[in-house]
């Protein structure tokens, strides 16, 4: 089945193509094939296509969508999901899952807030909040690696513990986080907040820019560094990686730590942006969207494969869907139906593209 797709001549011309394309001018057939190969090999193709489709649909349906308000609202939804999704990809590539990241995302601003209340300067309060986030990741990693508890269960447990702690220590009352002691969503730029405040979330675009920056860094780490190779190796073939000398336990723990750290970091930005902390807000809500974004973006839950860019685009897709449905006046209740359908569509397309890519490459 695989070989019947291409003629022998064609497959010969493309044998070494992706690497040698620049060296010698490949024949016409080869070039076209190469571009096609490149296209279908990108795991991000599906979410990009769907996102563009949605974007055009909402744009045509409601010109308001392309205003700063519409985009801002899309970015507002996409930001937290994107941040969590980017960190989550690292863990998913391992073949693990971190269900507590959403709660870390909500916990870390609380830590900052409590310390600030105790008189700790904001900067240090943030540092401490991040240290706590790292600590949670460390615990998740240690539970998974050394207690051999499946990460699905272990992190679900941490998630509940953290949720409970937030409820206990906040006395179940809402609070206003630090530099966002201004009313939420005031203006595009609140001039009386310093640069630091603007950077960590007051400026309306700061969150999404944080997420983009993090996505780029993590994508680089995953595809261009030794650590990235180790993550993929650990997720792709745990035993084989260990045999080759990859410190698989350390790699796993590192991924949990990174995931948790990134969640805590963007959690602070998000809390500052919206200016309120709601203890009753459960983190699982966020994390399930984030996992959804990863999956839409082409990350396999089985490990070994993942794309940060895809996850980010998946988050944008969910953001646009949520904001767009809002703007064209469809009830938020319908949103869940749509998001479900989009996920099925994306997964189907992903699977189809995978098979196509495999066929093209082995041809």
């Amino acid at each position, binding site marked *: 089945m695989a070989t019947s797709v291409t003629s022998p001549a064609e497959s010969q011309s493309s*044998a*070494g*193509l*992706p*690497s040698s394309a620049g060296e010698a001018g490949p024949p016409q057939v080869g070039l076209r094939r190469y571009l096609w190969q490149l296209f279908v090999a990108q795991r991000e193709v599906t979410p990009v296509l769907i996102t563009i489709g949605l974007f055009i649909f909402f744009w045509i349906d409601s010109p308001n969508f392309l205003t700063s308000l519409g985009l801002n609202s899309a970015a507002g939804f996409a930001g937290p999901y994107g941040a969590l999704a980017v960190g989550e990809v690292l863990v998913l590539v391992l073949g693990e899952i971190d269900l507590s990241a959403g709660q870390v995302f909500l916990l870390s601003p609380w830590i900052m807030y409590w310390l600030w209340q105790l008189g700790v300067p904001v900067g240090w309060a943030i540092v401490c909040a991040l240290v706590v986030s790292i600590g949670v990741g460390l615990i998740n990693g240690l539970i998974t690696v050394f207690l051999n508890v499946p990460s699905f269960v272990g992190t679900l447990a941490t998630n509940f513990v953290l949720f409970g702690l937030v409820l206990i220590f906040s006395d179940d009352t809402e609070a206003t986080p630090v530099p966002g002691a201004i009313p939420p969503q005031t203006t595009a730029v609140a001039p009386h907040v310093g640069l630091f405040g603007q950077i960590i979330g007051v400026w309306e675009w700061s969150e999404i820019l944080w997420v983009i920056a993090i996505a780029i860094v993590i994508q680089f780490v995953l595809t*261009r*560094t*030794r*650590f*990235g*190779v*180790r993550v*993929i*190796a650990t*997720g*792709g*073939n745990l*035993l*084989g*990686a260990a*045999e*080759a*000398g*990859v410190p698989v336990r350390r790699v796993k723990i590192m991924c949990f730590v990174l995931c948790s750290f990134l969640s805590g970091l963007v959690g602070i930005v998000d809390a500052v942006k919206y200016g309120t902390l709601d203890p009753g807000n459960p983190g699982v809500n966020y994390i399930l969207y984030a996992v959804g974004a990863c999956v839409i973006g082409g990350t396999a839950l089985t490990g*070994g*494969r993942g794309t940060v860019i895809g996850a980010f685009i998946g988050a944008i897709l969910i953001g646009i869907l949520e904001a767009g449905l809002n703007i064209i006046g469809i009830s938020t209740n319908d949103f869940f139906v749509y998001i479900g359908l989009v996920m099925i569509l994306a997964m189907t397309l992903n699977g189809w593209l995978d098979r196509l890519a*495999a066929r093209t*490459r*082995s041809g």
Partner: protein
Amino acid sequence: MIDDIPEPAGLAGETATELSRSPEVVLEVQGVTKSFGPLSVLRGIDLTLRSGEVLGLVGDNGAGKSTLVKILSGYSPQDSGRLLVKGKEVHFKSVEDAAAHGIETVYQDLALIPQLPVFENLFLNHEILHFGPFHVLNKRKMRELTRQYLDDINVNVPNVNAEAAQLSGGQRQAIAVARATRTNASILLLDEPLAAMGARESRLIIDLVRGLASHRSVSMIIIDHNFAHLFELCDRVNVMQGGRITIDQLTKDTSLEKLTELMVSNYRSQLQAAVVES
């Protein structure tokens, strides 16, 4: 029970003189024993491996082959006895220890990461990095060296960028062997390298093994229970029975039939001994 195994049958005469003329001994196992609780699995293994030699290790399930391999690859230590690499006694505390002495094990299906391209598999854990603190991969260099090395040892894969998952079983095995030898492994332990392979695939591995042995003086111990495979691959065959090496023969001095006969007669005397004892 089965302590009264006859002397190794093939060690006498011709074979021994042949061996003394061959190149230096790279690995020597002297009286190695290993027990798991009351069960003694290895009862004094003696084995030598010479430079560029391909040694086959056969034996039934439970004969202790895999236990011996685990000791040689540094996975678990022996209870007593000595291991000598190039004449020096070694004590392996880990797989890395063994690797540092040039001993690598190639497991058939476990070795490669299906989702990584060939060149990243070849350099797994020995990546070439750009200068700097972030361990950024020098992919161009790794690709280049991969092509060069695979060319050197005559392994043909369509594309070094192909994911390992897309390779055939034989190609994957070849890449795994290539990885081990590239990192200067001089002694390879191969576990059933031809299992589940078609004729063409087998040819690829047989040629690779023979080539590495003769051109690069890589020594290999091949564990298999398929005699036909061993006769194709090996210079010499050692048979393990009941935790000992009972037969040591050059493949050119023996045949499948002769070896089988020897093994059966060994079993018979083992059984008799067991019966007498009980």
